[in-house]
């Protein structure tokens, strides 16, 4: 009897699995024609306009399936709403897509700061075998050259229709540089009583600003001053007692840098969930809970998160304080940037 029951369960399971295994070859994809709109978007620099088209063009991936904007969405401050983004083959990336905003040259880029130069960084996802899958720069150039609209765009930007990797990189980096966040209610000093209370807690009681430097547009990590020697903007905040992701150690190869990641800029933070390098926290409340009572005792835990005995701090943030801090963080949203037509998809 039991044997028969087991067999029935197995058969049902296999049927359910097998039902989904039918991979019919009919692809019901109906292409929707789009028009490339370049006028009236407020951009005047032809190199930047070229960069915007490249940023949103899915032809820059090996299967024409995804673009830079697939994982860096304007309405989410050019970040993604998943812990790990899906590449061109639906394989997941290894870290959370950070927001693109207030970047500049000689700025430590990526969660582990492995690149300083924007023009080098912008090509890396395109050539990454998980993200956009292009084999090499020659394949990228060939693909861009085959799209007729780039003829005029390159001509206007560089005086020549010749497509080069340098031209692509410069244009993309110029577009990325104009993504600026500077018009939040915190910048305008236009805060409600609750938000001001949260600001006070952030700056004074819990001293979050010693790391996150919200008064600066570039606030947080990333200060590199050129080169990879300045790692002051990278900290271990005790997410785990043992780091699964080596973080900065991948770059410096030093044990003392294991589990250290770039301090993120908190502008538009309300839009960039999930949080941390692995997207483990789905809300700002969860982030605050981590600092309140969840800091793990990692050997490289930042000294600012240790108490006098060298143990992880227990900030014990109350629920009312948490509400106030979250309100303050929400006030760091720049609604103009996320709706700016100059930064929007030109293919529509």
């Amino acid at each position, binding site marked *: 009897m039991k044997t028969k029951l087991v067999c029935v369960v197995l058969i049902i399971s296999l049927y359910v699995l097998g039902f989904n*295994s039918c991979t019919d070859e009919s692809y019901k994809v109906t292409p929707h024609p789009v028009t490339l709109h370049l006028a009236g978007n407020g951009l005047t620099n032809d190199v930047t306009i070229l960069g915007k088209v490249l940023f949103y063009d899915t032809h820059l991936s090996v299967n024409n399936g995804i673009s830079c904007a697939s994982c860096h969405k304007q309405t989410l401050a050019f970040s993604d709403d998943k812990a790990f983004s899906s590449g061109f083959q639906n394989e997941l990336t290894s870290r959370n897509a950070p927001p693109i905003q207030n970047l500049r040259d000689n700025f430590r880029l990526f969660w582990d700061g492995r690149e300083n130069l924007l023009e080098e960084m912008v090509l890396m996802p395109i050539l990454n075998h998980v993200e956009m899958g292009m084999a090499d720069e020659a394949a990228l150039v*060939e693909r861009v050259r085959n799209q007729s609209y780039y003829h005029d765009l390159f001509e206007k930007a560089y005086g020549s229709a010749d497509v080069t990797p340098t031209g692509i990189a410069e244009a993309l980096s110029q577009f990325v540089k104009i993504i600026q966040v500077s018009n939040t209610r915190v910048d305008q000093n236009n805060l409600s009583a609750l938000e001001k209370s949260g600001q006070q807690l952030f700056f004074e009681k819990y001293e979050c600003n010693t790391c996150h430097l919200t008064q600066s547009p570039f606030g947080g990590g990333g200060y590199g001053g050129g080169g990879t020697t300045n790692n002051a903007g990278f900290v271990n905040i005790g997410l785990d007692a043992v780091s699964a992701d080596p973080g900065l150690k991948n770059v410096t190869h030093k044990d003392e840098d294991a589990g250290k990641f770039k301090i993120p800029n908190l502008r538009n933070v309300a839009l960039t969930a999930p949080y941390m390098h692995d997207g483990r926290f789905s809300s700002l409340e969860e982030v605050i809970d981590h600092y309140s009572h969840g800091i793990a005792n990692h050997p490289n835990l930042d000294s600012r998160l240790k108490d006098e005995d060298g143990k992880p701090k227990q900030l014990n943030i109350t629920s009312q304080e948490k509400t106030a801090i979250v309100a303050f963080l929400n006030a760091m949203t720049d609604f103009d940037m996320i709706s700016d037509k100059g930064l929007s998809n030109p293919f529509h």
Partner: protein
Amino acid sequence: MADSVPQVKKHKAFNHYVGLQANQLFKQFLNLDANGTIVKNPYLLTYAVTYSKLHLGIQGGFGYSYSLTKDKLSPSDLQSKVNNVFYRGGIFRNYIIGKKWEATTGVNYVGYYKLNRTVAFSVIHSGTGNVVTDSTATISTDLSKRKGTELQLSLGFHLSEHIMLFTEASFHYYMVRSKSNVLVSETVTNSDIPENDTFTLSTTNSDNEDASFDISLPLVLFLTIKF
């Protein structure tokens, strides 16, 4: 008075274990955090049979997943179908620990097969006056095969005589071979200058091999029936 014969429990020669991965099931029942630790074990079903006398057995596991993704990521319309098949087979030794616990150590051959077929279309109008249309159709096929060896350690607990809960840790070494083919057809038409219309067809093939070593922690739970 009838003779009373003492009941002697028969020891079966073979014990069969049929397991079903139960992490998602327990999450639903116990309302655990859906954002909890991701379990990497891909085997939905497992089967093992042991020869009781020697505590040796053979085992196998099977897992399958399918995903269909449709995206309109302007300028492309995209559809992607991904099939993943996982399988393993090997031998193991069984250890009975007290009345309630069983442990196994084993070696498996593991395999993985992934087929990703993606179709992307885009039709882009550009230019003012002379409207130029770029039409691109892409069919990409990616086949990834992985084979390797796995050292498996399992621990099981008897919830009842026939129902057990197993967890396992494993150490894998894989060789991966990935082949891909991307076929792209691109057509450019000019509304006013049809003699300038172009059509190009290109195909890109790649063939990569890689090796990796991986450790899976004991996070998976198998609800197992023993008979």
